[in-house]
């Protein structure tokens, strides 16, 4: 059944591709941030394949490191000239570009042939983050959920059941106490990079207030100083006071954070789907089968659904002057075949027909399940919200983690910026 579907998709693709190749010479400018050699090589191979099948298309690739990419994209977009395909996390920044008319709507291509391309995505909530109104400006090619990675061996060492990780806040706190008792750092965290800390605050808010609280604050019928957001800060503060995080964690970067987990220096880490490959790179074989995953614990009196998920991933957005060949190439990137091959290397596929490549691994299976079945999927605040507000959330939570602001002040600071940035 699945192979049939992918064969059908391949056929659709061939039609699209051949209709494109009738045009004269076109150049597709493509910016991605996969600097790791195997990933970079993979994208090059995919581009070469596409060019071989379409001799009139030239794909010019620019590979930039994340921070360099961001500052460069801001400048280039502001000068009104978008690349044809470029890295995008969806959400606020993408919508800002869309509002300024800098992106191309690809919904005609997504909806062609009874929506064959659109329906091939299993991560529909992710696809929605690249859309505004009826228009869609890009597609995701790797997508996941943030959750708790944990070290089963360390759990055992602390007398905890490695196969039954905590599900509620009470159990979670008990686990932290047990780990501390055993002299193990309970949770790895690098506060200096800000965004890992923001995961915590947002997840508390998701569990406490659910989709409703967020939408109210976002649509301005409520506020980011409402109770769930203040309480989120209080819970986070209590974790800091418990000593759940490493010594001097505000001075550590994300690099320190995953290195600590990878070397079994801490028992848990709240992180996205990319974490396992970083652990394996940093300290090959140390975690191995001892790596487990569980969803963020359920909070007492929380209004959110236990299945609600915070997450995100990578996609490519389409610039306003992008030729049809760019869209065809994007279609090729998210074809079942390419997604399957990418999943062998590092990608959590967004296309249904490719998921089984990674689901042998129980960690990835739970991540994909959480992603696909979330009643409410929240993209990271620092991507979803307008850039100024997203970066203010990160800053405010950092100050809270450093113990330099109360939960109330943190929520109010975010609300102040929200009242300015959101209509």
């Amino acid at each position, binding site marked *: 059944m699945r192979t049939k579907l992918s064969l059908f998709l391949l056929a659709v693709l061939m039609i699209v591709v051949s209709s494109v190749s009738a045009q004269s010479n076109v150049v597709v*400018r493509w910016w991605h*941030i*996969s*600097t*790791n*050699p195997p990933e970079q090589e993979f994208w090059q191979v995919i581009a070469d394949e596409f060019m071989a099948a379409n001799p009139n298309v030239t794909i*010019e690739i*620019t*590979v*930039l*490191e*994340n*921070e*360099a990419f961001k*500052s*460069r994209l801001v*400048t*280039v977009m*502001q*000068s009104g*000239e978008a690349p044809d395909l470029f890295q995008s996390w969806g959400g606020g920044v993408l919508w800002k570009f869309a509002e300024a008319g800098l992106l191309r709507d690809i919904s005609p291509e997504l909806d062609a042939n009874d929506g064959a391309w659109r329906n091939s995505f299993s991560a529909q909530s992710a696809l929605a983050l690249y859309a505004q109104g009826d228009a869609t400006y890009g597609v995701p090619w790797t997508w996941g959920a943030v959750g708790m990675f944990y070290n089963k061996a360390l759990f055992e060492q602390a007398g905890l059941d490695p196969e039954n990780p905590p599900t509620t806040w009470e159990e979670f706190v008990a686990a932290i106490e047990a780990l501390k008792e055993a002299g193990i750092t309970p949770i790895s965290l690098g506060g200096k990079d800000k965004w890992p800390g923001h995961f915590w605050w947002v997840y508390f808010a998701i569990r406490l207030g659910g989709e409703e609280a967020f939408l109210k604050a976002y649509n301005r019928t409520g506020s980011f100083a409402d109770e769930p957001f203040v309480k989120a800060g209080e819970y986070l503060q209590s974790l800091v006071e418990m000593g759940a995080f490493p010594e001097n964690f505000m001075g550590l970067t*994300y*690099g*320190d954070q*995953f*290195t600590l987990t*990878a*070397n079994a*220096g801490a028992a848990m880490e709240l992180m996205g789907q*990319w974490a396992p490959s*970083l652990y394996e*790179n*940093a*300290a090959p074989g140390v975690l191995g089968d001892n790596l487990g995953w569980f969803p963020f614990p359920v909070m007492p009196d929380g209004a959110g659904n236990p299945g609600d998920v915070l997450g995100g991933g*990578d996609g490519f957005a389409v610039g306003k002057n992008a030729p049809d060949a760019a869209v065809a190439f994007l279609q090729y990137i998210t074809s079942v075949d390419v997604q399957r091959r990418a999943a062998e290397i590092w990608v959590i596929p967004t296309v249904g027909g490719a998921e089984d490549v990674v689901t042998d691994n129980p960690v990835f299976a739970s991540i994909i399940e959480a992603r696909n079945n979330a009643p409410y999927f929240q993209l990271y605040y620092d991507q979803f919200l307008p850039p100024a507000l997203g970066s203010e959330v990160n800053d405010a939570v950092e100050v809270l983690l450093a113990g330099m602001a109360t939960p109330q002040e943190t929520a109010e600071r975010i609300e102040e910026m929200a009242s300015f940035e959101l209509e």
Partner: protein
Amino acid sequence: MLRITLVRSSLLILRYVILGFLCIIVISPVMTAFLGSVRTTNEFLSRPFGFPEGAWNFEFYLDILRSNSFWRFMGNSLIITSFTMVLNVVLACMLAFAFSRLRFRGRTFAFNVLSFGLLFPLTVAILPIFIQIRQFGLIDSYWGVILPLVAFGLPQSTIILRSFFIAIPNELEDAAYVDGCTTFGFFRYILLPMARPAITAVAVIQIIGAWNEYFLPILVLNKDVYWPLPLGIMQFQGQFGTDWSRVMAYVTLLIIPAIIFYVFAEKYIVTGLTGGELKG
């Protein structure tokens, strides 16, 4: 007499101790980078300063030196640096000559306007600069990096050269004209040779600046075939994880030519910065 020598030599020893200590402070960060480069990233991140647990591992250096991209980056750096330096020095010499030896209305005003450039770092006007570069069609061209670098270096170079040119006695100029020399002749055959130390110093300062420039090439150069060396660090920085051992190996490789170059050029930097007063 003996006591005096004793005091003298113990003072000298004290000076050596202090200076030796300072040298250690200067060198130890460089050692950190080097020690990071001969261990794995995991070792480095687990213990940022320390000697390798096992054998010293020079594999990262070999990898970098064996890669084509490193040598291509090196070639690009040489092109960008040398053109920036030459163009800057030529233009600055001409400007400095006009501002020191030619008399014309608006000279002080023009010179002041140029000096204001000193007050503006390149980063603050980056968007308009980028728009300008694009309008001239210089994206993905060495010139898109070279010309702005030359422009932002002009105020400093001109100020240094002008103070040298002013110091050259007027009598010399008069004598040259009496001998039938033209303005260009005086400039080319008398002034420039005399100002050679200053010109070398300006050139060296420009070389250091252009060699180290990071921000501008990122904006201007799409294709990595045009990238200069500093941008090569990006190869080792992933979206989430950075391969610090390779970064440190790369950084060490970048430092080495800087030091070698510096050892040769030190004399000129010094003369340039100080108006040639320094003795060995």
